[in-house]
C-alpha cells in the first residue's frame, strides 16, 4: 500500500512541478515578448532619430555648401570691386606720370610714382589673398602649356632685376644649357619664382642673390630644379618651421621691418604641389637662405587647349544693295566702293532678305518697285526680324511715297536717279561718328573707359564707347570697329553674352576682342573665352604699352587683310 501511495504522491508532485514550470515558462515567454516589443519601439524611435539627425546633417551640409558658395562669390565680387578702383588709381597715376613728364613738371614724378607703386602693391596683396583662398577652396585651376624654360627665366630676370637693385644686391642667373621646354602652368611657375626672388631681394642687403636652373634626368620623367639662394639675414630652425604657413612670417617684427603679408611662400608651396612638385628650404641664421623648387617638366595635362589663330575678314562697312535693275547695281557698286564701302548685291526681294541675314550689312539700299516681292514687303520683313531691324534701310525709288516709307521704318529716302553725293551723305549718317570707329570700348565703368580710351586716342585711333553690352551690340549693328575692348562684368548684358553674340554673327565674328576685366576668371570662364577673345587683361595689372602694341598689331593686320581682299570681296552679284 505504502509503495503505491508513495508513487502516487511522487507522481502528483511531479505533475504539480510540471505545471509550475509551465506557468513560469509562460510568464517568461510573455516577458520576452514584451521586452521584444520594447526593443522594437526603441529601434523605431532610433530610426526616426537617425532620419532626423540625417536630415539635420544634410541641412547643415547644404548650409555649409551655400556658405562656401557665398564666400566664393563674395571673393569674386570683392576682386572685381577692389580691382576696378585700383585700376583707376594705377591708370590715372600712369597717365599723370606721362603728362608730368611731357609738361616738364618732373617735381610730381616721385609722388606719382609712389601712388602707382602703392596701387600695384595693393593689387598684388589682393591677388595673393584671392589666390590663397582659391587654392584653399580647391578652386585654383591649372593651365598647362608648353613653354621654353630659358625664355621664361629671362623674362623673370628682367622683371625682378629692378627689385634686386633696390637693396644693392648682385643678381646672377645660372642656367644649364639643356633646360629645353616644359609643359606646365607657366603663370604659376613664374609667380612661384617671383615670390622666392622677391623674398630674397627683400631680406638681403648689399648681398648676392642667385637663381640656378637645371634639368634633372629621372626615371618617370625629367624634373626641373630652380634654386634661389641669397646671402641675406637667414632664419633660425624655429622660423623655418613656421615658414610655409599662411599669414606667418619669421616673426612679428618681420612684417614691421620688411612688409608683406606672409602669403607668398604659402602660395608658392601650394602652386608647386599643384604642379606635381614641391619646394624646400635650407637656411642658416645670419648667413642666408636657399629655396629649391623641383617640378616635373610635364605637369598633369588638365589644360584648355591653345587658341586658334584669329581670322580677320573685310572690315569695311558693308552696304547691301537690293534692286532689280542692273544699271543701279553698277552705279551704286562703283560709287560706294570708291567711298570705302563693301557692297553686296541682291537682284530681288527674297535674295535681299537672305543676304541681309547672312551678311548683316551696316546699311541697306532698297528699291521699292521690284517684281514678285516688292520693297515694302522686304522692309516689313526686315523690321519684323529682331536681328535685322536695327540695320538702317535707305529706300530708293522713283515714287514719292516718303510717308509710307518712314511709317514702315525706313531710315532715309533716295529718289532715282540717284545723286552720288546725296547717297554718300545719307549713308554717312549711319556710320558711327564722322569716320570709321576703329576701337570700341564696352565697359560700364566710366573711369575704366577713360583710362583705356586716353592712350588709344593719343596713339591716333578713333575710339567709341558703349556703356553696356546692349549698347555695344547696338553699336556693332551700325558700325564695325577694328577691335573691341570688352569688359566682362556689366549689368544687363555681360561681356560673355556680348562675345557670344559677336561670334554667332557672321559679320562680327572676325572682329578681334580684347577682354579687360577685374573679374577673377575660373577655368570654365577661361574656357568660354578660349578662341573667342584675343587676349585677357586684368584691370590694373596690365601694361598699357602692351595693350597699345596689341591693338596696333590687330588694326594693322585687319587693315592689311581688308586691303588684300578688297578686290574679289566686293562683287557678289
Amino acid at each position, binding site marked *: 500500500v505504502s509503495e503505491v501511495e508513495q508513487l502516487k504522491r511522487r507522481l502528483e508532485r511531479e505533475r504539480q512541478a510540471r505545471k509550475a514550470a509551465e506557468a*513560469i515558462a509562460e510568464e517568461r515567454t510573455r516577458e520576452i515578448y514584451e521586452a521584444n516589443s520594447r526593443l522594437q519601439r526603441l529601434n523605431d524611435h532610433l530610426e526616426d532619430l537617425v532620419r532626423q539627425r540625417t536630415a539635420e546633417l544634410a541641412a547643415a551640409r547644404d548650409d555649409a555648401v551655400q556658405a562656401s558658395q557665398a564666400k566664393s562669390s563674395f571673393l569674386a565680387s570683392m576682386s572685381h570691386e577692389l580691382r576696378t578702383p585700383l585700376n583707376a588709381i594705377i591708370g590715372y597715376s600712369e597717365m599723370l606720370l606721362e603728362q608730368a613728364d611731357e609738361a616738364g613738371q618732373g617735381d610730381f614724378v616721385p609722388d606719382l610714382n609712389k601712388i602707382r607703386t602703392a596701387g600695384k602693391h595693393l593689387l598684388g596683396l589682393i591677388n595673393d589673398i584671392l589666390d590663397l583662398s582659391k587654392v584653399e577652396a580647391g578652386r585654383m585651376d591649372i593651365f598647362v602649356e608648353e613653354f621654353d624654360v630659358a625664355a621664361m627665366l629671362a623674362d623673370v630676370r628682367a622683371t625682378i632685376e629692378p627689385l634686386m637693385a633696390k637693396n644693392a644686391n648682385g643678381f646672377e642667373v645660372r642656367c644649364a644649357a639643356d633646360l629645353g621646354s616644359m609643359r606646365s602652368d607657366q603663370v604659376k611657375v613664374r609667380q612661384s619664382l617671383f615670390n622666392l626672388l622677391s623674398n630674397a631681394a627683400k631680406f638681403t642687403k648689399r648681398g648676392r642673390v642667385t637663381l640656378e636652373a637645371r634639368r634633372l634626368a629621372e626615371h618617370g620623367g625629367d624634373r626641373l630644379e630652380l634654386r634661389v639662394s641669397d646671402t641675406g639675414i637667414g632664419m633660425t630652425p624655429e622660423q623655418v618651421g613656421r615658414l610655409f604657413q599662411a599669414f606667418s612670417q619669421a616673426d612679428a617684427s618681420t612684417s614691421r621691418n620688411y612688409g608683406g603679408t606672409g602669403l607668398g611662400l604659402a602660395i608658392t608651396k601650394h602652386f608647386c604641389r599643384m604642379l606635381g612638385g614641391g619646394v624646400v628650404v635650407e637656411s642658416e641664421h645670419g648667413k642666408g637662405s636657399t629655396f629649391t623648387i623641383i617640378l616635373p617638366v610635364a605637369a598633369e595635362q588638365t589644360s584648355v587647349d591653345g587658341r586658334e589663330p584669329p581670322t580677320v575678314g573685310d572690315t569695311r562697312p558693308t552696304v547691301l544693295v537690293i534692286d532689280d535693275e542692273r544699271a543701279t547695281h553698277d552705279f551704286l557698286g562703283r560709287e560706294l566702293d570708291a567711298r570705302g564701302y563693301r557692297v553686296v548685291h541682291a537682284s530681288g526681294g527674297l535674295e535681299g532678305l537672305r543676304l541681309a541675314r547672312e551678311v548683316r550689312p551696316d546699311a541697306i539700299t532698297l528699291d521699292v518697285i521690284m517684281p514678285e516681292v516688292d520693297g515694302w514687303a522686304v522692309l516689313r520683313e526686315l523690321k519684323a526680324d529682331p536681328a535685322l531691324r536695327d540695320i538702317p534701310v535707305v529706300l530708293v525709288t522713283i515714287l514719292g511715297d516718303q510717308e509710307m516709307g518712314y511709317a514702315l521704318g525706313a531710315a532715309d529716302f533716295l529718289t532715282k536717279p540717284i545723286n552720288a553725293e546725296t547717297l554718300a551723305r545719307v549713308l554717312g549718317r549711319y556710320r558711327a561718328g564722322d569716320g570709321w570707329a576703329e576701337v570700341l570700348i564696352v565697359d560700364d565703368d566710366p573711369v575704366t573707359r577713360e583710362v583705356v580710351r586716353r592712350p588709344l586716342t593719343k596713339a591716333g585711333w578713333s575710339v567709341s564707347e558703349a556703356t553696356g553690352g546692349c549698347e555695344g551690340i547696338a553699336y556693332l549693328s551700325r558700325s564695325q570697329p577694328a577691335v573691341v575692348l570688352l569688359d566682362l562684368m556689366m549689368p544687363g548684358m555681360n561681356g560673355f553674352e556680348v562675345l557670344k553674340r559677336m561670334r554667332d554673327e557672321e559679320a562680327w565674328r572676325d572682329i578681334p576682342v580684347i577682354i579687360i576685366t577685374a573679374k577673377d576668371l575660373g577655368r570654365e570662364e577661361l574656357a568660354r573665352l578660349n578662341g573667342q577673345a584675343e587676349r585677357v587683361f586684368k584691370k590694373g595689372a596690365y601694361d598699357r604699352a602692351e595693350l597699345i602694341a596689341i591693338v596696333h598689331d590687330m588694326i594693322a593686320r585687319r587693315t592689311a587683310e581688308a586691303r588684300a581682299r578688297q578686290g574679289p570681296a566686293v562683287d557678289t552679284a
Partner: protein
Amino acid sequence: MKGMVFTEFLEMVENKFSPEIADRIIEKSDLQSGGIYTAVGTYDHREMIELVSCLSSETGISSAELVHSFGIYLFSRFHTMFPIYFEGVSSSFDFLERVEGYVHIEVRKLYPEAELPSFACDAPEPGCLRLTYRSARPFATLAEGLIRGCVDHYGEAVDIQAEDLSDGAGTAARFLLTKRDAPR
C-alpha cells in the same frame, strides 16, 4: 534558492539512498512548497535546510557531511548541464577564478532576481588560491563541497583548508586551496 538545487538534491537522495527516503523526508518536512520543485522556480532556502536536517535524522549522517557530499554531486551536475561555462577551462583554479567574474554574471543575466553568494578569490602565492565565500544564507559547507567537486573533476591533488568567518553561522568562510605538488 534556485529550484534546480532542490530538484538535484532530491534526485541525489533518490539515487544515493532511495526513492522511499526521498518521499519520506518530503512528507516529514514542513515545506511551504509541499516538496513540489521545478528547476526553473525559486524557493525558500530554509526548505533546503529542513530537507537536509530530515535526511540527517533518516540516515544518521551529519547535515554537514550530507551538504558537503551534495556539493560534490552538484558540481558534476553543473558540468553536465552547463558545459558552456567550462569551455577553455583546464584546471580547477581556472574555473574557480571565473566563478565571480563570469559564471555569476551570466547567471544574473538569466535570473536577475537570483541572490548569489559572493565568491572573491586571490592568489597569495603561486600554487595557492584563496576563495572567500559570503552569503545571506548559511551554505559555506555546500560551497566547500562544490570546490571539492571541482578539484576532483579536474583530477587534481589540491588540499582545501576551510576557515569559518561567521562564528559558526556558515554564511562566510575562507577556503585556501594549495596544490600538493606546488613548490612551497
